[in-house]
């Protein structure tokens, strides 16, 4: 039959079967699927590393089951994989890639070949990460601080190269998004009719394009230092290691927002959809994403408060850092206000949405205390910081990622997963996460330093709580994964066109799963993304 159907009118999963057609496709949906699978793979890998060293930390130092070097290697791999291969590309490349054209009413991203290139660069990066594994023990930490990272450790060199390629993958994705958002919107899709997820991706793309190249040059200079010791960063040659930290954080602070801003977008989608309610203060939420982006370029120095950075610089950076609190607060308040008098449906994605709200509240509040200069001196480089950024990167971004996967899974696969198991998993994840990371907050403010293989006996209790928690967390995520995969079997129910009753284009108009060119014909947008008032029940 298919032979007679015009190719654009069959869904993208059925069209052109065969692995080769997947690898050479320029269809954003297939590319994002491949991104999703790769990202999930590395998420599991990074998670395994995390569980291994949490097990080690059950008891201090040599009482554990791995050596100090192995421990350092594990937390480095956990950091590098999770940052460069999971959270940074996760939501934009895997979910945004799929959803963005659908939400805009476009046939595809503006530059499909660039999109495929981005995927291949990502894979090259991933392969290089494995080469580093073979080459030895990368143990520099994901921050690659000089001079430790320029001690000619081959594994670290491979890891630097991997990060280099992943950076370009990220740049190309961002570039593609901005072009698409500017040039590919369907008729009637005005800027303020764009879903907030698009606004978040737009803000993210700005940072990807303007910050990531500086990472590239930083890694390049680090590689050169490794081989020639030209003395820009290398203190043995009169270089300044703190200058390297400036270069690194000029990228890596915006990178933190590259990580978290898309999660804000997903949170807005989930909360609006499952409350059947217009998002409260749409423009404030939209512009707070842009605002956080611009402020994000001004505050990198707060990672260097104890690095011997000049006191004046510290003061300026602390001052500016406080301003990031404002857009974050605006978002949290607006989401909360959106729930007010809504019609709240606690489906699986919404459970994750509420978790994002909860975790980001803690992540944001712990962030503010770290920008109080005098207090930060005490908390710097302790588990408090570790816990803070896990509340943001894991508790906000990865929870949003998982929630987003549950939200768009029916659209991607055309299948419905089991709701009961989905909710159970969500609840398990919530408690697992809190147990794991709240213990670390207390341990940190008590002064327990991060990246420690051996620790004082008084901290053991917190480490044990944290280690117990991580297994609940892992169990929850594993349950969610199995539940999703189980939905792919034949007997599982097919997804309806619009299971959540959402008002955005990808649910209202696009078929499930979408056609090769997404829509039968280009949709004409007549209402905003969350106009539930005009909806006939």
């Amino acid at each position, binding site marked *: 039959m298919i032979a007679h159907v015009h190719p654009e009118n069959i869904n993208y999963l059925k069209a052109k079967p065969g692995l080769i057609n997947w690898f050479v496709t320029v269809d954003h949906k297939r590319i994002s699927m491949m991104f999703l699978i790769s990202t999930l793979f590395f998420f599991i890998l990074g998670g395994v590393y995390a569980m291994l060293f949490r097990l080690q930390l059950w008891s201090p130092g040599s009482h554990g089951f791995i050596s100090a070097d192995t421990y350092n290697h594990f937390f480095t791999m956990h950091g590098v994989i999770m940052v460069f291969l999971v959270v940074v590309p996760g939501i934009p490349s895997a979910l945004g890639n799929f959803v963005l054209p659908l939400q805009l009413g476009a046939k595809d991203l503006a530059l499909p070949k660039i999109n495929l290139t981005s995927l291949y660069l990502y894979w090259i990066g991933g392969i290089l990460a494995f080469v580093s594994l073979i080459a030895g023990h990368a143990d520099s930490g994901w921050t690659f601080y000089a001079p430790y990272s320029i001690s000619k450790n081959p594994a670290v060199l491979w890891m630097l190269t991997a990060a280099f390629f992943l950076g370009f993958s990220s740049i190309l994705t961002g570039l593609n998004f901005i072009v698409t958002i500017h040039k590919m919107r369907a008729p009637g899709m005005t800027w303020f009719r764009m879903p907030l997820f698009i606004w978040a991706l737009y803000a993210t793309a700005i940072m990807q394009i303007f910050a990531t190249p500086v990472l590239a040059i930083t890694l390049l200079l680090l590689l050169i230092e490794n081989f020639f010791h030209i003395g820009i960063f290398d203190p043995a040659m009169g270089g300044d290691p703190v*200058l390297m930290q400036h270069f690194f954080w000029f990228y890596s602070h915006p990178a933190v927002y590259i990580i978290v801003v898309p999660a804000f977008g997903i949170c807005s989608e989930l909360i609006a959809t499952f409350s059947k309610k217009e998002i409260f203060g749409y423009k404030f939420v939209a512009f707070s994403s842009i605002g956080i982006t611009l402020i994000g370029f001004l505050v990198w120095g707060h990672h260097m408060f104890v690095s011997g950075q000049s006191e004046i*610089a510290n003061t300026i950076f602390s001052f500016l850092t406080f301003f990031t609190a404002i857009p974050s607060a605006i978002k949290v308040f607006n989401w909360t206000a959106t729930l007010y008098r809504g019609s709240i449906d606690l489906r699986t994605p919404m459970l994750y949405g509420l978790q994002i709200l909860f975790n980001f509240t803690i992540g944001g509040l712990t962030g503010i205390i770290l920008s109080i200069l005098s207090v930060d001196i005490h908390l710097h480089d302790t588990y408090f910081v570790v816990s803070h950024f896990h509340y943001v990167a894991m508790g906000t971004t990865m929870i949003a990622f998982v929630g987003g996967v549950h939200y768009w899974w029916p659209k991607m696969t055309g299948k419905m997963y089991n709701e009961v198991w989905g909710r159970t998993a969500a609840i398990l994840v919530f408690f697992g996460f809190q147990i794991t990371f709240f213990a670390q907050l207390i341990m940190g403010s008590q002064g327990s330093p991060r990246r420690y293989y051996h620790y004082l006996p008084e901290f053991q209790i917190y480490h044990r709580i944290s280690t117990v928690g991580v297994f609940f967390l892992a169990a929850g995520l594993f349950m969610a994964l199995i539940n999703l995969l189980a939905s792919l079997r034949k007997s599982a129910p097919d997804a309806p066109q619009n299971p959540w009753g959402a008002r955005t284009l990808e649910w209202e108009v696009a078929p499930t799963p979408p056609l090769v060119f997404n829509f039968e014909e280009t949709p004409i947008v007549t209402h905003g993304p969350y106009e539930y008032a005009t909806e006939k029940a």
Partner: protein
Amino acid sequence: MEQLPGHTYNFKTLAGVYVSLLFLAALMVGFSLVPMNSTNITWLDLHLLKTLIIFAIGACMALIIAGFLMGLKYESSKLNAIIFATNFAFLFIFILFTWTDLGLRGAMDPSFMKQINWESPVTKENAREQAQEAPAPAP
């Protein structure tokens, strides 16, 4: 025919651009050859002034190149100009804030060395130690 976005095909304009670029380049080199030490002006750092002027000329050339050789002047949308400006805004922030660190180290407690002291015995000994046994490699 009217101007398309992109490069102008008005030969006069392009020739003018080309000549002015060459002129500015020559000016740049010329300035760098002016011997500043021979003058006896002390109330003003002529060396710094010279550097600033040279880079100012460079900036002018950059604007001309972006405007005509990249066709920024003939863009249909202002967006591209904004992107271009944003580049330099961020780079300016980068160097400015980094300089507030490098330049003002020890400003609060001047009794300590603020610049990198690469001739301190520390680095010498450090170099020697590295020569003797390589810094602990990961087994």
